[in-house]
């Protein structure tokens, strides 16, 4: 299973390096989201700075939808699931591999967005350790849920609208936890973020476990 996971993760990342869709499309999209927030809530940073954490994570959440769609789009377009099933790869390995690839891309994206938030909203990135911990646990949770729902919706012709509808509500606790953790860190109270970080960790562990177990049956339906 792990061998297959590494194989799939490497394949996905290599495709991303070649096609640079994440770099050329998803990152600019996230930047555009930040700018739109700025337009909506600016021009002074009075409203933006306190909201910086929330806006950051909303932008991340929207970008996750794109990243997941891309992850499944590379699997030979419409017959995504057929290709994966025929390949002989262990489904749990496919889940972990794709998830890991998405998480890696998310972390890079978050680094860029953090810089954007510091620049555009005037936020000072204090409590870096908590910020980082929140990013890692949140990204793992989002990646796991993303791959599950990506696979669920990949066969449907309405997948572009179905995926956000399914994914975003389920990811609400991640948004909540990550935002609160970041808020605590940014306002100089990193110690208080523990409860949020544990929430994020529970979410991540739970959904990685669910995905590992459920991905086999998930791929199987037609």
């Amino acid at each position, binding site marked *: 299973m792990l061998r297959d996971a590494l194989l799939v993760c490497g394949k996905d990342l290599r495709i991303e390096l070649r096609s640079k869709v994440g770099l050329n499309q998803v990152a600019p999209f996230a930047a555009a989201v930040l700018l739109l927030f700025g337009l909506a809530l600016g021009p002074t940073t009075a409203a933006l700075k306190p909201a910086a954490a929330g806006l950051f994570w909303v932008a991340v959440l929207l970008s996750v939808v794109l990243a997941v769609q891309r992850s499944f789009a590379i699997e030979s377009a419409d017959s995504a699931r057929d290709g994966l099933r025929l390949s002989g790869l262990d489904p749990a390995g496919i889940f972990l591999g794709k998830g890991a690839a998405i998480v890696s891309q998310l972390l890079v994206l978050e680094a860029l967005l953090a810089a954007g938030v510091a620049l555009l909203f005037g936020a000072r990135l204090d409590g870096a350790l908590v910020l980082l911990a929140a990013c890692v646990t949140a990204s793992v949770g989002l990646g796991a*849920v993303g791959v*599950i*729902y990506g696979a*669920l*919706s990949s*066969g*449907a012709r*309405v997948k572009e609208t*179905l995926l956000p*509808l*399914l994914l975003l*509500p*389920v990811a*609400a*606790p991640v948004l*909540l*936890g990550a935002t*609160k953790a970041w808020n605590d860190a940014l306002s100089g109270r990193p110690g208080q973020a523990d*409860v*949020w970080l544990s*929430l994020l960790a*529970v*979410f991540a562990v*739970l*959904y990685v476990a*669910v995905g590992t177990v*459920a991905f086999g*049956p*998930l791929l*199987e*339906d*037609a």
Partner: protein
Amino acid sequence: MRADRALRILGLAALAGMVATVWLGLFVTPNAVGYPDGTVRLLYIHPPLAWVMFIAYGMATLSSLLYLWPRTRHVRFDRLAGASAEVGVVFTGLTLVSGSIWGRPTWGVWWTWDPLLTTTALLFVLYLGYLALRNVPGEPETVARRAAIAGLVAFLDVPIVFFAVSWWRSLHQGPTIDLATRHSYVHGSMAWTLLLGFVSFTLTYVWLMAHRYRLAALRDRENDEGLGAAIADRWAEAVR
């Protein structure tokens, strides 16, 4: 036939219960101290609605589990899950509306980010997504299995959402609904009316479920019978 009669009796009982609840709730029970005029009447409806919502989703999740478990895999569980989720979504909507109606005279706002209300709103959206997934066309077993997995994944989120939102609220000041203190005002005829409310709404849930389930079963049977005709048509293609 016996099932039909039982169902009809059930429906009548539910209806009678609801009428009685409304009558008692609106006219017979007294106004409670501390509640703006009349809003206590919602007490007889809002908690029962929320209660039905929870059992509906619980039922949907349990049925999904049973469907996925190989030993108990049977299409009836898929139908149950779908029916229950649909009824659940309706009741969630009603819960939100009744909660909102409560909020307006009580705190002056149509909405408050109270843990229960927020969780309910998220549940609403979660299960709307579940229903959307069920409507995606495909083989019956495909749809059933996909929906069952999605239902479980969504349900696992519910406690997390609730705890997250509770923590979120507990760190802030603001209007909170305190269920405990509310119930301390409930006694006498109010308590009986409340109980009647719970019972009649539960009966209504069962009645709605039974009908929805039967609808699904009929639809499946129509599909199966259509299969024989479809195969015959297909064979006919080969005739030049």
